[in-house]
């Protein structure tokens, strides 16, 4: 604990840190690879759409001694369609029959009840017409599209359009990965899955927004100093909020894990399981993307701005000049370890004081942080 606290402090001070922005290309590549895998998986294997999307019936019985294969035979006899039977955690059976008309299901239910020797009144039936699933899915896509438009508008106002664009990319990234995992692993897609997926929307952005908020605060007067480039400050923002991001993600995942444990382990299958599974995958992807994708993307976008280009030039020039003069004063801890993972910036970083002494730097710091906060 104390170590964690110290780690937090060191991250906060920038004594240590991972060069997220500098190494962004690696992570972009990783993400693109995952995304391609997901898309290929989706194209080749497709999604295992549940009964709710094809139309059919799901019957759930209470505890019964009838074996799975026997129940399968019964169900197929009764319905004339293929049936999938699962044993549930409580000893009951879950019988799925695809392609059954909602009108015919009562008959099937009666037959099943007779064969399985359980009371027909004690069988749960979930009957879905083929168009219902489509409607649920259509509405979900519609909701997704509307949400994306609104959130981009909101983020563009609250922050700026570059951040909004980066957040959107991260969001699409998360959803693609989640869908891809479903395609590759072959989990069944149900309305519960869709619910989980849609929840990721808000949640994946939660972490991203926390990092962006810190980034916005720290780059307020960026052009008034020549000490850091935008990318470097972005990096500090990520590192500074890293503990927070980890904590929020862990805390968000814990209840979902509880759901998954109960939903998957005790009930066997059903809505709880479906929601929590897609949430779990999506949350993990969301935490990853807000750190490794969203913020580096913002830095990339920002560095293309003429202002930021000029700033970068100034910063690099200053560092180069300092290097040329060969001043090798003792660098403050603050800077020393900070850039050492980025070979390009390593040399200038050592001679930090040279850059630090520059007038605009101190002025910028003074204004940007009325608090006298160091960064």
């Amino acid at each position, binding site marked *: 604990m104390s170590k964690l606290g110290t780690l937090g402090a060191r991250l906060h001070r920038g004594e240590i840190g991972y060069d997220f922005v500098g190494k962004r290309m690696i992570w972009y590549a990783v993400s693109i690879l995952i995304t391609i895998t997901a898309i290929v998986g989706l194209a080749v294997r497709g999604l295992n759409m549940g009964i709710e999307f094809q139309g059919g019936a799901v019957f759930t019985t209470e505890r019964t001694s009838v074996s799975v294969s026997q129940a399968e035979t019964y169900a197929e006899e009764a319905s004339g369609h293929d049936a999938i039977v699962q044993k549930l955690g409580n000893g009951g059976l879950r019988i799925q029959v695809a392609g059954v008309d909602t009108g015919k299901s009562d008959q099937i239910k009666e037959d099943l009840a007779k064969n399985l020797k359980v009371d027909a009144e004690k069988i*749960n039936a979930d009957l879905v017409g083929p168009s219902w699933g489509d409607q649920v899915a259509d509405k979900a896509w519609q909701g997704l599209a509307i949400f994306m438009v609104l959130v981009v508008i909101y983020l563009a106002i609250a922050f700026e359009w570059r951040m909004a664009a980066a957040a959107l990319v991260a969001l699409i990234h998360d959803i693609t990965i989640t869908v891809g995992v479903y395609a590759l692993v072959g989990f069944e897609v149900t309305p519960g899955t869709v619910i989980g997926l849609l929840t990721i929307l808000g949640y994946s952005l939660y972490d991203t927004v926390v990092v962006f908020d810190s980034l916005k605060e720290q780059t307020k007067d960026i052009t008034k100093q020549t000490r850091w480039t935008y990318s470097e400050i972005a990096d500090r923002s990520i590192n500074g909020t890293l503990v927070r991001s980890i904590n929020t993600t862990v805390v968000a995942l814990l209840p979902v894990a509880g759901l998954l444990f109960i939903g998957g382990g005790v009930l066997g299958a059903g809505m*709880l399981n479906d*929601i929590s599974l897609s949430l779990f995958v999506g949350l993990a992807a969301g935490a990853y993307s807000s750190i490794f994708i969203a913020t580096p993307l913002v830095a990339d976008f920002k560095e293309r701005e003429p202002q930021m280009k000029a700033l970068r030039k100034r910063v690099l020039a200053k560092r180069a000049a300092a290097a040329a003069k060969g001043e090798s004063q003792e660098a403050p801890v603050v800077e020393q370890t900070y850039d050492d993972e980025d070979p390009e910036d390593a040399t200038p970083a050592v001679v930090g004081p040279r850059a630090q002494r520059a007038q605009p730097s101190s002025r910028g710091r003074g204004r940007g942080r009325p608090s006298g906060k160091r960064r």
Partner: protein
Amino acid sequence: MAAPKKGRQGTQGRPGRTLALILIAIVALTGGMFASGHTTPRLGIDLAGGTSITLQARNEPGQKNAINKTNMDTAVDIMNRRVNGLGVSEAEVQTQGDSNIIVNIPKGTNSKQAREQVGTTAKLYFRPVLTTEVSGGDPAATPSPSGSGTPSGSPSPGSDKGKESEKATSSASPSATPSATATSQGRAVTDALKADPTPSAGTSGKGNPSAEPSASADPATAKLQAEYAALDCSKRTARAKAGDGVKAADPTVACGQNAQGQWQKYILGPAEVEGTDVDKASAVFDTQGAAGWKVTMDFTGKGGKKFAGITGKLAQNQSPQNQFAIVLDGEVVSDPYVSQALTGGTAEISGSFTQQESQDLANMLSYGALPLTFTEASVTTVTAALGGEQLEAGLIAGAIGLALVVLYLVIYYRGLSLIAIASLLVSAVMTYVIMSLLGPTIGFALNLPAVCGAIVAIGITADSFIVFFERIRDEIREGRSMRPAVERAWPRARRTILVSDFVSFLAAAVLFVVTVGKVQGFAFTLGLTTLLDVVVVFFFTKPLMTILARKKFFAEGHSWSGLDPKRLGVQPPLRRTRRVSAPVDTKEA
């Protein structure tokens, strides 16, 4: 330093008062919950057991844009009548999305019958009344035959409703046309049933249901008579069965309720006009005549001709055979008498309607003309046992999730976690109370996805505290003491919390508005808990933090407070570095 100072005065000023305020609010809400008697949230079908049917509206061929709010609302009204007419208690019918109707039938009722009812398309017919009388019920409550003496009145209890006498008139003619209907009761035979020796129908309004068929050569008619005689409309099951499965072209028996709320039974002739012949119907207030609220009907071209035909015939008859019954799903919803042939393609039904009555009738008439058909999109039957099991599983999952979060917070934040746990508890209590109260007020029902939403919300709520705590720790790492650290951390944490909660809320709101089915319940809980999160953080967590920051335990950074500067890595070297770097600046500048 002006801005933070302002914030300090504003937020630190009266933390105790804010705390007291929210505690009073919670007590008031809880008190309201107990006062209202709804101490648990209403459970959805998937948790309580029962049947939930989703019906999807479709345009009938050739009709576009028929799925609109008016039509859907009319359909819901009708479904409600049908389901609740079955004796299903507390069945609820509501629209969802723009083209779905959800029918929720609680456990313990005959869901199969209910399904049949809502699954079939409503049938509206105009049938001539052959005979009618009060059925069952309290004889003392028989209507007084108020109309028997007046020429315009109709002596049969079918049309004579004491306070209201309905009649259909051509909209062109003045509504108060006194038809010279003689009160020669007992005159038999209508055109419709010419072939059959009909009963000597027409009963007196004095409540003696004595009308027996005079003769019956035709076995079908005899059967009808027998059915009629046996029919007791005061019994629900009998009502539901009456006229079940009868074709439009056959005569039938039916029940209806008159203005006194008494059940009345009828023998009705074959349907002459169908619901689809009505183009539209609306309730209007008659400003010229003194008729008050009335219902006007426009017929389609074909329907107008048919209607002219039937009214022409009926107008010549004696009561009650000058009446036609508007039959919806086998139940007589209105039985106006006809005073003359109505040829204009329009008609109005007047009587002493209240606004509500006239609108209901207009709705029902419109429904027959609704160019919508409904198909069962999904039917979910959940036994009470499984519902209970799912609820239990959800609660256990929630408890596990909560325990894990608390454990993590305690390990990581130590003393600070007390504040987080207290806030989580406040949040949980408020969520529970508000959910309980929303049951009776807006019909909110807690279903499984909603339980999931609440569990997921534990994480979202706890995240807000983490954002706040991490900010405070950052400030302490800057070398501040506890109290200024809290006050400086708050404005920044506040902004972050607001922005991220707004995004969460936006997602929930969009989902709630756009989606259908179970997604909606989930979105609702998520949105509610997000709002409550903001309330709790602002009015509970922050003031509590401010108060506790004054306590020695936190202010001095006790090693178990979670704010121990040493543990947070505030080390002398930090101060040295800062001091060193400052002179460097001035020296070289």
